[in-house]
């Protein structure tokens, strides 16, 4: 047996999250990821964790991610100059998807910005980009802004899935933030103060992220795991975190976003880039406008290829780097892809049966249309596939897999 595609880099120094010992003591298969020691899965494996999250809920230790505190009277104005989305649209208790762009409209990172108080924000970035982002932000720091790295002070947990709301409501002292994506607020579990936000990386209609003191995180995690178990809410490792985000069509830095690729090549950038003329200057604005115009004009000059969702219509190999063909001509290549488990729905909810299907994200010629039939080459074989709008749709509190004609059952 020989590995064809690895697990990312290896590092000499690996850091531990506050939940590390819990993971190790509960069957977590620990691996090195972006400089951190984290579970790829627990005893029941990636598929079981993916399916449990979609049917009941999943707990994620995401304390490895970078968390920067931004405060001060000029915090909003400075963030508005550094980020592609407009923090002026936020208010305390709201969050937004955003990107950190360089002058050329290439992503340093994609990120989430949470406004906690009038002059207090948290910017959450990818673990792999933490040092680069922090350097960039410090180099461009203005007056009236205090930027602090809280990555090792604040832990971050995610509770995602149909029963996440029920679980948190049973444990928290204050009411949950109002329903609706990206809403948040301060809360308490026992004596532990925390900030809670309706955000996440799984596509689940009900999803939460918790920010809390590092030293309290293990006890809170254990409480969530213990109280979640009777509901079917389970701890989830990095493996299912990746299959869940892929099934939800969400980008991963290093795969869909890369330092060389225009930001607007990723469709989710539309949610994280605000080019409103009243906003004024921000890092990368001119380049992003050129990219947006290229896409709008249909000439695609600056953005010759962009990312699409590709569903396999039979069982077969769907791997990053594979060539995607249409009518015998190269259309692009896969940026992410694997077999993804899905529940067979019984009425409005997941039933008892599940199946696997190959799903991927692909960088394809920008003029590609949804519905285009394609072939995905892997070695000597070609898997039939189709460019689709998305792989899932919200159904009540569940995320339902969309089945495609001719698709694998």
């Amino acid at each position: 047996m020989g590995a064809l595609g690895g697990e990312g880099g290896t590092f000499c120094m690996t850091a531990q999250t506050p939940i590390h010992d819990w993971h190790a003591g509960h069957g977590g298969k620990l691996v090195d990821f972006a400089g951190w020691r984290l579970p790829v899965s627990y005893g029941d494996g990636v598929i079981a964790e993916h399916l449990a999250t979609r049917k009941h809920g999943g707990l994620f230790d995401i304390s490895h991610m970078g968390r920067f505190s931004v405060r001060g009277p000029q915090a909003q104005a400075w963030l508005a100059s550094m980020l592609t989305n407009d923090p002026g649209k936020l208010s305390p208790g709201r969050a937004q998807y955003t990107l950190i762009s360089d002058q050329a409209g290439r992503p340093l990172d994609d990120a989430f910005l949470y406004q906690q108080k009038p002059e207090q924000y948290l910017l959450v970035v990818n673990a792999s980009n933490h040092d680069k982002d922090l350097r960039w932000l410090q180099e461009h720091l203005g007056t009236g802004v205090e930027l602090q790295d809280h990555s090792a002070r604040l832990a971050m947990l995610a509770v995602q899935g149909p029963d996440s709301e029920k679980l948190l409501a049973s444990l928290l002292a204050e009411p949950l933030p109002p329903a609706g994506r990206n809403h948040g607020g301060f809360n308490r579990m026992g004596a532990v103060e925390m900030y809670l936000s309706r955000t996440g990386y799984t596509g689940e209609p009900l999803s939460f992220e918790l920010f809390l003191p590092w030293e309290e995180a293990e006890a809170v995690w254990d409480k969530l795991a213990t109280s979640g178990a009777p509901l079917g809410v389970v701890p989830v490792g990095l493996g299912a975190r990746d299959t869940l985000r892929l099934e939800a069509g969400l980008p991963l830095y290093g795969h869909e976003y890369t330092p060389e690729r225009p930001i607007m090549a990723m469709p989710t950038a539309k949610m994280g880039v605000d080019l409103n003329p009243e906003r004024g200057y921000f890092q990368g604005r001119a380049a992003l406008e050129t990219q947006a115009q290229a896409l709008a004009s249909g000439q695609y000059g600056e953005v010759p290829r962009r990312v699409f969702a590709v569903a396999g219509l039979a069982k077969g190999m769907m791997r990053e780097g594979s060539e995607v063909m249409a009518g015998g001509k190269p259309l692009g290549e896969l940026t992410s892809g694997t077999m993804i488990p899905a529940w067979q729905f019984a009425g409005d909810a997941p039933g008892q049966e599940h199946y696997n299907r190959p799903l991927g994200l692909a960088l394809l010629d920008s003029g590609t249309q949804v519905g285009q039939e394609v072939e995905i080459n892997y070695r000597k074989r070609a898997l039939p596939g189709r460019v689709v709008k998305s792989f899932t749709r919200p159904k009540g509190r569940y995320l339902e897999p969309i089945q495609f004609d001719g698709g694998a059952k």
Partner: protein
Amino acid sequence: MSEAKKAPEGIYYTKEHEWVKLEGDLAVVGLTDFAQDQLGDITYVELPEVEAEVEQMGEMCVVESVKTAADVYAPLGGVVAEVNSALEDAPELINQDCYGAGWLVKLSGFDQAELDNLMDAAAYVQLMAQGE
């Protein structure tokens, strides 16, 4: 987990974590327990065509797991006589029973002399212990 489950006696092993068992004129091939554990949940197996010719330690098929994709090498040169088509719908059989129901391929027309290039269970377990 017992040593017997990790590497049963009476069959041959490659250093790439395939096993092969002689059954009359056929050689049954599969992945070892170490291999299936490293791969994690196996989600797809791309089996070779029946009658395909393979060389010893040449590429034979591909297994995909939620973590990675991996080539499986032929422990012996020969011709693919049979493939385990049950894996098409249930690739998890490799995780559940890698030395039994999770077999991959049966080869015919192999050269017994090539067995000399393989390891017995004791040698394979020793290799594992050395951290290969």
